[in-house]
């Protein structure tokens, strides 16, 4: 202990200490380390001078560049909006029909609409807009509130049964729960409703369907129409097509008629710009199957 020795392998002296057999060489620090330390410090120094960095009491050094991450991103976004202005201006001012006739613009709609739909609407309506139980399929010809791009845009703006003051509102009454129809009648009207979209179903006796038809005319036709094809005035769905929000099997229809329904589609007025909503409406019209 306390005696410096020379390491035969590297040729450096030891520090002369020993801990449980471990010794240390007194190798000088290679210059390159000081160089890099200096370089890293110099880099930092320059950064500190240019950028906001050092706190001083109740404020901080602002840096020569006056950089501010918030101003920067606000600017970037404004700049990006300007770069898009060639097509955004067109979509904003042209009518739906004109845009639909313009393949270049419709390409933009498809590109932009896909992500916009994916980040905002897909949670309910699915990535492919095919919907899920309780959330309608948006790719069919069958629309609660009308399928023109204008009507769709309006639905997106105000929502359905949403918090928006001008919301579209609709309600399927709770015929069973609220005691408007006895269970036996519900059974019959359900049989009739099923027969509309599925006339071939085996378990639907003709007399039951006929009784259901009577009940439907008095109770349901006011909203769903004499022909049960729905009414976009009140958001009542078409019951004769194969598309269902809540399911078209006997059990689901029965649940609907017994307990009522009131779907909730949020309003997007304060979350998405007019432009974005217009793009989405166009996107949906474009997505819809040509001939269901």
């Amino acid at each position, binding site marked *: *202990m*306390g005696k410096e020795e020379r390491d035969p392998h590297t040729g450096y002296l*030891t520090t002369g200490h020993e801990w449980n057999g471990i010794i240390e060489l007194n190798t000088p620090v290679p210059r390159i380390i000081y160089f890099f*330390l200096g370089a890293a410090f110099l880099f930092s120094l320059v950064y500190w001078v240019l950028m906001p960095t*050092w706190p001083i009491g109740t404020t901080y050094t602002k840096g020569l560049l006056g950089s501010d991450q918030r101003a920067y991103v606000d600017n970037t976004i404004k700049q990006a909006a300007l770069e898009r202005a060639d097509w955004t201006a067109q979509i904003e001012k042209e009518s739906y029909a004109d845009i639909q006739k313009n393949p270049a613009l419709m390409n933009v709609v498809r590109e*932009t609409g896909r992500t916009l739909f994916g980040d905002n609407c897909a949670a309910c309506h699915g990535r492919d807009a095919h919907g899920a139980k309780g959330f309608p399929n948006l790719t069919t010809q069958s629309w609660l509130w009308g399928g023109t791009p204008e009507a769709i845009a309006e639905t997106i703006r105000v929502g359905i049964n949403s918090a928006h003051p001008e919301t579209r509102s609709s309600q399927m009454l709770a015929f069973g729960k609220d005691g408007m129809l006895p269970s036996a009648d519900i059974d019959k009207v359900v049989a009739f409703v099923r027969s509309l979209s599925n006339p071939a179903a085996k378990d639907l006796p003709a007399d039951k369907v006929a009784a259901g038809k009577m009940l439907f005319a008095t109770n349901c036709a006011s909203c769903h129409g004499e022909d049960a094809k729905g009414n976009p005035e009140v958001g009542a769905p078409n019951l004769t097509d194969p598309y269902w929000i809540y399911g078209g099997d006997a059990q689901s229809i029965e649940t609907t008629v017994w307990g009522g329904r009131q779907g909730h589609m949020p309003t997007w007025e304060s979350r998405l710009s007019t432009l974005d909503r217009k793009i989405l409406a166009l996107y949906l019209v474009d997505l819809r199957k040509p001939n269901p």
Partner: protein
Amino acid sequence: MIAQLTKNERQVALLILLALAVVGIAMAAGGRHDPFGAHGALVLLAAIVGSFAVISGYYAPEPPESRLDSYYDDPSKAGIILAMIWAVIAMFVGDWVAWLLVNPNLTFDAGWASFGRLRPVHTSGVIFGFGGNALIATSYYVMQRTSRARMPDQLTPWFVLLGYNLFCVIAATGYLMGVTQSKEYAEPEWYADIWLVIVWVAYFVLYLRTLARRKEPHIYVANWYYLAFILVVAMLHIVNNLAVPISWGSAKSYSLFSGVQDAMTEWWYGHNAVAFFLTSGFLGMLYYYMPKRAGRPIYSYRMSIISFWGITFFYMWAGSHHLHYTALPQWVQSLGMTFSVMLLIPSWVSAGNALMTLNGAWHKVRDDAVLRFMMVAAVFYGLTTFEGSFMAIRPVNSLSHYTDWTVGHVHAGALGWVAMITFGAIYASVPWLWKREAMYSARLVEAHFWLAVGGTVIYVFAMWNSGIIQGLMWRTYNESGTLAYSFVDSLVAMHPYYIARAVGGLFFLLGAVIGLYNIWMTIRTAPQAAPETAADRPVLAGGAVLQAGE
């Protein structure tokens, strides 16, 4: 174990356990309607089991005076076994959560089995359970030998080790019950935090008392690092965990800080948990076991000084690199970024010093898987710190933050550096501690090594890929100048990488299981009456004394 304690220590142990039992009863009673009560029962159980152990050995003869001329290694042995058990449990949970991201239905409709509750079991389990036990066990071993002094008493090391494990068990069971403060790496609730402070103070005092008895005037580098680990973790822990419990009978508390100040405090803590738990402590380990195993001197004492103080100083400024572009004022981000860049130099000086130490011993690295573990650890340490400094640069972080890239970086450090150096140190110390000639099977060590390296590489590459793809998909614009992918698009793209990661993790876990088996079998083989040299023993009071000055 009890036979090793003096009569007086047995009495003190009983008193401590009694106090613990009282606390347990009070907690159980006060928290009847709360997970707090369950933890009270757990504390009580621990106290009862402990008391039984002490009482059953209470009348054993006192340990002979001759104990004082050897090191006190039983707590290290226990610590190593505990570390390996935690490693297997926590990495099993890690792989489980990895599979949960492949198939989310493995939750079985049970709260405790869902991703959000299991994830902290994994992170705390590996960092505190595995890493912490390994650090405590090796620090006992190293501080005694580099001081040539036995620990001052027999009770404190057990109090620290077992008390620490009680903390870990409270933490892990708490997460399963939904008890968490949600502060990353500081999730345990207020009462566990307080208990850890008590344990930690005892640990610090134990360290100081052992160092005070040292026979070499200079304190060895490994001890600087262990000391920094103990001290700074205490500082961080206390400040970050300041909180107000809602009542004395509830597990729930509210953090003293909120919003932006809380975020900065949390990442000042979180980043330096990396620095002083996962780096400083393990560098202490490296500084003892690597030169020892390689039989080479530390390459440069002067580089040790530069890197030690560089790391201690720079790291503490870097935490804000976890908050780039957030609502944290930009000036703090600037500091975090620049100090992270400067931090690279001392980090690489450490890694370089370690690798240069192997000069003249590379043939051993080739032949000895244990030394190879340590060598690979030093390489991964260099790689991870380079990556970390790179990711701390604001524009780079804008891509990497929130993505799997961070997870890749974490596991390059955690698997490649932390776990590898630990396995190396454990394989080196097991034969020394249990006085065996070598590990039970060198081939199993070799197998573990390759599983660990393979697993790490698969894991890290999978996460680099997924992280960068994810980050790019989030910010890719199409020709119209609008976002090209929705969030769910990026989620779908991650699937294959999540499978690869889970497979890589399985390899790594398998290696750890093999390691545990190998250690167990080593312990079961007959001891070797290896000739003990004077260097294996503490220098007694009569021997060479601290030399004043030089």
